[in-house]
């Protein structure tokens, strides 16, 4: 990125790199909180190429060489797409499955929602489009063995070991790369899974084959066999290539002088080394960075209710932090497979600058997407072969995007070509002028995002005026005004590093492990003190076991014991409810009836916060459905620099004027360079604030104020 060398700033200490579907974003951070960002196209075949190109772009912006960058930094964070691509392209390992007899068709049947998850609303309604994802194991390599353990962990039928021997031999003869084992209720009692694994390993050794064995209780001992099955399959199927990609990243970093191990992001918001034993926990990591970054910015500005919104080319992702609470989604979808990996919750709608615009010739109905032109061929104005008009083309036609400064000038936008195609395919079909049609399309996109934000907020049961909206992503600031208008946010903020905000968020994370296990502990509303003590003892013993496992893993990763902090947590609900809430335990062990009551009170407090105080229902009793431990170790983090507010006139960042079509008419809009804006500056619309990687449009009557952290506050007029 052609930004002038950063003078007077020191050596970066953290590199955060976020490889998305189209672009790989890099952010460099030094100890004083200076940032530089870099961008390059993602290279799915060998991710290290895109990694290096993106890092080089950022290093150039900083004004240093790759060698001095890598030899000087303490942390390299990388979140990539290798595993996801392996899954999407079905190029993973050849698997075999051994399961409880009678459950062999579980893979084919799947979950009903897997047939339509990710579909547009219209397609969801049309069952003819529903289709189950291609299974990862064919039915012929699925073998049932006789055994049964019930929900209490009691053995109802013993394991028929001869079934296992036969199945293992058959799979070895089929030349599988890995054998997965998933028996029902193994999360309560894993005896049979363990024994099946033993037999399989014996058979593999006897045959002299090189076959890995995975068991579901080791991958994640949590209730719901379909999700547990998907998790163990995906771990076995996709992680080997993912691990190879991550190893490639580490090797490249080391050739440029990096001294430590590369870290990657977990879906529940922590960092781990690339040797993480359950690598599928890092698969949904890209958008997670944004929520972490939002939490960090929230602390700075003193508001713990935040909505973060990320608009890129294809989707609009929204994350919520309500009064300091992030939401954990326990069964997220991955390529339409339901998994049981705890993940920071995100709401997503299809809305982005790459959306393809369509007008039905019969009804003149306009529809956006859901297809996106992506980066290849991209919008028409990229002149890379795209032929379908997109939102980005509308932005270019209306003068909102600078044709000579897109990605810092790396892509020259062909506005005339976009205009001609848009006129023919959209404006003329509807029968209105080009500008009016283009602005209408943008308004539709922004209205979709605006409605989605309102829906997410109303789901929280808290007034919008408590929330601060954070807007980022390559096209977030471009459509910020329309997305946020009329909702009544407390504040609306965007960033100079908006295009790499997710990568920034990754750099604010700590090293983390999260171990948990399903439980079935029902505490009556009128439980006696003696009963409470017993419940407490059960909880404590499970916590101790999990703590030991989590700490051991972190020590193995090279963290010193005294640096590791552990916090136990519980998933609790009122007995009979269907959803649980995550409660951070107020105590590290429960040794008395009073302690147990403290834990219950903590649950009620969280429940009241997430729902509403009057919705508490202690009369039903309490159920603990899962117990877990989060272990963390600190990492150096970026700090944003606080500078005194200067004068409000932004003349020093002014770089010219351009005609832009805003609110139904052409305006002479002032242009500003985003990186040159200083604390205190106030920009009044109509104006366009440009950055090589993003563009902020300030509508007539609106204002942008730069605060002491150099955050950009958007104020509707």
């Amino acid at each position, binding site marked *: 990125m052609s930004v002038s060398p950063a003078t007077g700033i020191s050596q970066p200490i953290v590199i955060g790199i976020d490889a998305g579907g189209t672009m790989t974003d890099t952010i460099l951070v030094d100890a004083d909180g200076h940032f530089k960002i870099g961008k390059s196209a993602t290279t799915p075949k060998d991710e290290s190429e895109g990694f290096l190109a993106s890092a080089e772009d950022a290093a150039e912006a900083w004004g240093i060489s790759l060698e001095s960058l890598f030899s000087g930094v303490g942390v390299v964070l990388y979140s990539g797409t290798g595993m996801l691509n392996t899954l999407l392209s079905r190029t993973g390992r050849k698997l075999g499955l051994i399961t409880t007899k009678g459950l062999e068709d579980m893979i084919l049947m799947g979950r009903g929602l897997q047939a339509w998850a990710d579909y*547009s609303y*219209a*397609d969801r309604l*049309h069952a*003819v*489009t529903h*289709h189950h994802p291609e299974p990862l194991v064919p039915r012929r390599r699925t073998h049932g063995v006789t055994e049964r353990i019930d929900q209490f962990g009691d053995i109802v039928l013993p394991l028929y070991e001869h079934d296992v021997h036969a199945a293992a031999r058959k799979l070895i003869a089929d030349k599988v790369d890995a054998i997965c084992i998933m028996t029902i209720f193994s999360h309560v009692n894993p005896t049979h899974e363990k024994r099946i694994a033993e037999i399989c390993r014996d058979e593999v050794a006897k045959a002299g084959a090189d076959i890995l064995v995975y068991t579901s209780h080791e991958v994640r001992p949590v209730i719901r066999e379909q999700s547990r099955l998907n998790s163990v399959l995906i771990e076995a199927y996709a992680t080997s290539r993912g691990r190879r990609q991550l190893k490639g990243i580490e090797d490249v970093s080391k050739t440029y002088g990096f001294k430590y191990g590369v870290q990657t992001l977990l879906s529940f918001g922590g960092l781990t080394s690339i040797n993480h034993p359950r690598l599928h926990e890092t698969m949904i990591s890209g958008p997670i960075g944004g929520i972490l970054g939002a939490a960090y910015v929230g602390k700075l500005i003193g508001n713990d209710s935040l909505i973060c919104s990320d608009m890129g080319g294809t989707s609009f992702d929204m994350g919520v932090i309500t009064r300091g609470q992030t939401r954990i989604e326990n069964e997220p979808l991955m390529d339409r497979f339901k998994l049981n990996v705890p993940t920071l919750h995100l709401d997503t709608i299809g809305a982005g600058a790459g959306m393809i615009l*369509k*007008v*039905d*010739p019969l009804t003149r109905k306009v529809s956006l997407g*859901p*297809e996106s032109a992506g980066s290849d061929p991209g919008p028409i104005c990229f002149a890379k072969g795209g032929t379908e008009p997109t939102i980005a083309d509308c932005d270019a036609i209306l003068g909102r995007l600078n044709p000579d400064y897109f990605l810092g000038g790396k892509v020259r936008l062909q506005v005339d070509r976009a205009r001609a195609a848009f006129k023919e*395919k959209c404006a003329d*079909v509807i029968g209105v002028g080009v500008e009016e049609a283009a602005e209408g399309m943008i308004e539709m996109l922004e209205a979709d995002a605006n409605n989605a934000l309102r829906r997410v907020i109303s789901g929280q049961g808290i007034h919008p005026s408590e929330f601060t909206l954070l807007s980022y992503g390559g096209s977030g600031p471009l459509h910020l005004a329309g997305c946020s208008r009329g909702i009544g946010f407390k504040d609306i903020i965007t960033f100079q590093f908006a295009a790499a905000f997710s990568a920034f968020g990754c750099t604010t994370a700590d090293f983390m492990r999260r171990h948990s296990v399903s439980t079935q502990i029902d505490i009556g509303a009128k439980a006696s003190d003696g009963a409470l003590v017993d419940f407490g003892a059960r909880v404590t013993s499970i916590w101790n076991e999990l703590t030991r496992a989590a700490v051991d893993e972190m020590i193995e990763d090279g963290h010193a014991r005294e640096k590791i902090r552990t916090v136990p947590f519980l998933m609790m609900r009122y007995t009979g409810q269907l959803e649980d809430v995550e409660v951070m335990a107020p105590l590290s062990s429960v040794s008395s009836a009073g302690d147990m009551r403290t834990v219950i009170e903590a649950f009620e407090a969280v429940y009241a916060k997430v729902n509403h105080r009057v919705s508490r229902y202690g009369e039903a009793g309490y159920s603990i459905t899962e117990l877990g431990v989060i272990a963390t170790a600190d990492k150096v983090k970026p700090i944003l620099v606080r500078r005194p507010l200067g004068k409000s006139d932004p003349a020093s960042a002014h770089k010219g004027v351009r005609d832009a079509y805003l609110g139904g008419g052409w305006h002479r809009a002032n242009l500003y360079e985003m990186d040159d804006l200083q604390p205190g500056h106030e920009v009044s619309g109509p104006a366009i604030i440009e950055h090589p990687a993003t563009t902020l449009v300030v509508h007539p009557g609106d204002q942008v104020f730069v605060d002491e952290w150099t955050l950009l506050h958007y104020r509707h007029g």
Partner: protein
Amino acid sequence: MTSYSKEVIAELVAGTLPWPQTRRIMSAYKDDDRFFKYIAVLQDRVGWKDKILLPVGDHLFICQSGEERVTRCECGHSFGDYRRNWKLRAAIIVRDNEELLREIYPNSDLPDPAWMEIREFICPECGTLHEVEAAAPGYPIVHDFEPDLEGFYREWLGRPLE
């Protein structure tokens, strides 16, 4: 606006198009020229020269046969004038007792033959099963529909039949 090549439509009809592409076509607006491409694909498939005017089943078509318009099986067998119910000239199996119904429902409950019978309409020449109807015993053979070919071509396809 939307349009696909004849090869794509041929694969769509044959069911060999990859699923993601099939779904994209399903979810998009209907392509303007689909009908004529579809007819062209069908025309390539059948072994006779009569022009197909309208498909009325997977292997059954109304076609222009000289001056006449007839319903024709893919094998070439003619069921006569299209305005007449072609079923009346088909070979018919009527399943109206338990034994005959059991042949097609070997493992499940049966409909009550006193209330419902199943009629299968088969091409007398090639044996293709063209249609199955379930009706109350004694109910006349159903005439599925008599298309208004002129109106359909003129008003819906915008290309009147000569």
